[in-house]
């Protein structure tokens, strides 16, 4: 496997540059108010601020609420909650099908009045019904819609808390308004630990090798150049400017009161704040900044602390049950240790996830709700829930198999990949081929051939084209393992006859040419591909091959690598791994 070096983490610099000057921190709110977009109640603190919630423009993130004069813990909690309210993504703008918790519809939907601080308690109670009708003007039965949404919520948020956490949640439920005082060691108090990651490695290289003029021409989206909201965040993610995206998550989280230096300080959580954390930590992982992720994950413990459950906030999320932690975040948390040379810990965490998934599936099959309670589910809902949890279980098993592979425990890895087939039968061909490749890596060519034959038997004629290419690729790999580069090359070419744009076949054919002593041809082929179709071919793996061959070809490889750098500069975001250019 190729070794990846995580770039060293940027030391924390505290300067979070704000664009439009700082708005004063949030006002307070009483705990009776439910979650998003809450109308302000009576006990507002003297400072007012305008919260522009209409349309797409959101206010720039506030400074830390430490600026707010607030005496008690309660008030501080209130502050945090208000801030989290303002940044939430409104369903109108959301691209997701499953909309925000149904409570928001009961309160007063998102088509909003700009300055809500004017509303008193009395007025707000009449409003919800008006707004409710406004929102649901198109549908017949608002309650049915609300109920079905709550079904979706329930099955996605279901989780089995540990015994201790369960006790705390029960005690919260039995007291009406204020959460029981839980020791702070059982609370989740996260905060940013890294700031200002935005360093563009490509631009740095350009400065060194192509000069300042060229470097100035580099245009990438930065955290400042997009809307300071989830929409902007998605733009940065999809354009592969993940470092900028990380910075933006930092800003958005700061508005939630969980900014730099806030770790260890009491706060409260919402669905949205946790999603932001998830995106931040996921991006760290994609950038291979594993230590950063580990440090910022730390305050979350094992994601089972009471304040990460909806039941902990009975006034904010009344009646809602389950975990606010996205399942994908749990998965990320479980997988992380393997990238930090602690694969056994990753396996332990993944096994724990697997156990809970199996318990939930068991509950469902017995006719109970996911968390074991005696709620009757309709047939449709039960099936949907079973489907969801089975696919989650399959995903956990993929993680386990990948981890075992990383640990080089090939036997267990193969067994685990094999057992995924029952959960994802449509991936049978890919899984069996993958297992075959594992055996090729070990050197057991015979066993690999057996698996590839299995694949071939399972692929009928007239099946999808991808099956045929898969069979051919497998055959090519076997030829490779038998040192028959000529046949391997010919077989990759056969794939290209069926699928001319297949980047893997093109890359692999070029690699074979090198082993056959045909360097110039190989170079020509790869270079041509990179020029014609940079979207597919400006990829780490291809560029590693290309630069390796440049170095083999002549002493003037630096010039050619610089040309590659220019091509990269035009298209790739700030997350591009520049090591493959070998210009360092």
């Amino acid at each position, binding site marked *: 496997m190729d070794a990846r070096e995580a770039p060293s983490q940027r030391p924390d610099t505290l300067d979070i540059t704000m664009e439009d000057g700082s708005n004063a921190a949030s006002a307070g709110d009483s705990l009776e108010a439910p979650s998003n977009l809450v109308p302000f109640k009576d006990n507002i603190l003297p400072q007012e601020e305008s919260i522009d919630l209409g349309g797409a423009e959101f206010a720039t993130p506030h400074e830390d609420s430490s600026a707010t004069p607030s005496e008690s813990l309660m008030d501080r909690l209130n502050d945090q909650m208000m801030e989290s309210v303002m940044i939430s993504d409104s369903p109108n703008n959301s691209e997701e099908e499953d909309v925000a918790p149904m409570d928001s519809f009961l309160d007063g939907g998102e088509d909003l009045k700009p300055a809500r601080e004017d509303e008193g308690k009395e007025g707000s109670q009449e409003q919800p019904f008006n707004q409710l009708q406004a929102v649901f003007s198109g549908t017949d039965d608002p309650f049915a819609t609300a109920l079905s949404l709550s079904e979706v919520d329930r099955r996605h948020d279901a989780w089995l808390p540990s015994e201790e956490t369960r006790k705390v949640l029960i005690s919260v439920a039995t007291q009406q308004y204020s959460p029981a005082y839980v020791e702070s060691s059982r609370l989740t108090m996260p905060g940013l630990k890294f700031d200002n990651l935005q360093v563009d490695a490509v631009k740095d290289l350009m400065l060194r090798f192509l000069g300042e003029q060229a470097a100035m021409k580099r245009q990438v989206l930065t955290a400042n150049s997009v809307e300071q909201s989830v929409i902007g965040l998605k733009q940065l993610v999809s354009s592969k400017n993940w470092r900028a995206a990380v910075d933006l998550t930092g800003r958005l989280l700061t508005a939630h009161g969980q900014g730099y230096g806030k770790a260890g300080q009491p706060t409260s959580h919402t669905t949205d704040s946790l999603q932001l954390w998830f995106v931040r930590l996921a991006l760290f992982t994609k950038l291979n900044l594993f230590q950063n992720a580990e440090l910022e994950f730390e305050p979350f413990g094992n994601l089972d602390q009471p304040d990460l459950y909806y039941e902990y906030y009975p006034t904010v999320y009344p009646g809602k049950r389950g975990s606010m932690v996205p399942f994908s975040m749990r*998965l990320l948390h479980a997988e992380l240790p393997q990238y930090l040379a602690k694969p056994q810990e990753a396996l332990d965490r993944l096994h724990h996830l697997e156990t809970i998934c199996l318990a939930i599936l068991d509950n469902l099959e017995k006719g109970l709700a996911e968390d074991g309670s005696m709620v009757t589910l309709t047939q449709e809902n039960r099936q949907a829930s079973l489907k969801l949890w089975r696919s989650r279980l399959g995903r956990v098993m993929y993680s386990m198999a990948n981890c075992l592979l990383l640990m080089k425990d090939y036997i267990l890895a193969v067994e685990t990949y094999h057992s995924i087939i029952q959960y994802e039968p449509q991936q049978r061909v890919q899984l069996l081929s993958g297992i075959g490749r594992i055996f090729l890596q*070990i*050197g057991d060519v015979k066993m690999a051939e057996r698996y590839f034959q299995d694949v071939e038997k399972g692929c009928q004629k007239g099946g999808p084209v991808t099956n045929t290419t898969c069979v051919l690729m497998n055959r090519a790999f076997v030829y490779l393992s038998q040192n028959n580069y000529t046949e391997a090359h010919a077989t990759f070419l056969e794939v290209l006859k069926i699928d001319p744009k297949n980047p893997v076949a093109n*890359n692999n054919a070029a690699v074979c040419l090198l082993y056959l002593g045909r360097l110039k041809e190989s170079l020509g082929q790869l270079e041509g591909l990179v020029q014609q179709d940079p979207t597919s071919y400006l990829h780490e793996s291809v560029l590693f091959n290309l630069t390796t061959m440049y*170095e083999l070809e002549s*002493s003037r490889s630096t010039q050619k690598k610089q040309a590659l750098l220019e091509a990269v500069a035009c298209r790739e975001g700030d997350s591009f791994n520049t090591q493959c250019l070998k210009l360092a």
Partner: protein
Amino acid sequence: MDVNQAKQEHLLALKVMRLTKPTLFTNLPVTCEERDLPGDLFGQLMKQDPSTIKGAESLMLGEMLTLPQNFGNIFLGETFSSYISVHNDSTQIVKDILVKADLQTSSQRLNLSASNSAVAELKPECCIDDVIHHEVKEIGTHILVCAVSYTTQFGEKLYFRKFFKFQVLKPLDVKTKFYNAESDLSSVTDEVFLEAQIQNITTSPMFMEKVSLEPTIMYNVTELNTVASGDDGESTFGKMSYLQPMDTRQYLYCLKPKAEYAEKAGVIKGVTMIGKLDIVWRTNLGERGRLQTSQLQRMAPGYGDIRLSLEMIPDTVNLEEPFDIVCKITNCSERTMDLVVEMCNTRSIHWCGISGRQLGKLSPGASLLLPLTIFSSVQGLQSISGLRLTDTFLKRTYEYDDIAQVCVICPYTSNEC
């Protein structure tokens, strides 16, 4: 990877790259569900990535081949493959280029180039390519010497050499142990069991394709490393078909001396050659290695001058009932012996017959059969002891105790015994 810069004054540049097998690119899957904030963004990113497996993007091991990024390790028995490229870096046409590649070890110098003829001309920006292969047969320092000679367009003859040094390491640690079987009572010959312990001392897993013992002319080999099931036997190692770094495996072989050598087997003294171990293994993407050990030697167990073995003895006998045994006495010395047999009773073993009788002369290498009768007075597993053989020529007595064991049972069910 050994790529050195060419000297500035030369028109041609020589580059060398070791061609180990390519590796498969791995991905780090990061996924989320539709309801999460990124929605299907992460999924889209993974689908657009050309190195993921389409339809199973969470599968870590992809299909993209990546060229080797460094020289890596090379082990005895593996094949050293290398790409040698001579590139015309100049703007003039170069003529009569001769590229030679030699491998220099501590003991010898081998020519590796495929072709020994000169290339007539090389235009600017063109190159001459060669891929050389060599099965490494020595440990230690190896030097690849590449020599390039050429003529410039002005007629000047130029020449340069480059040296690439690398170490060849030992991949396996082999230990052997011999076990002598107790004489199989139904056969006359002795079997020798060879246990070979093989340890992988490289840094990556090895698939043991074949480990076989090639015997010398004296022996037949039965390999005992498969469990008979179905058509092909299944290996005794089961699913664990590969050897992790620092792991050890034991292979077992049974050697039987061939019939024509059988008689001599009993009197083989000193060191004998048993055979050679032939080991073939594979690593990443079928990279092959092969080694043979030197002739394995076995020290014959010393039998002394006379060897006493049992030809026939029952397993179980009844208490106080006489039973017959047959002993075989072999003269392992160089001189003729005149033997007298004496039997001494032990607490449990009582000999029947005449003690002190002469057995007659026995020439060197010859053997005789001696039937005897015993009965036991004690129940349980009893050891037969008390035979004495005296060579009257040298007046030397050889004692034989604990020759064999027999199980003595009581045939009566009542308490009378």
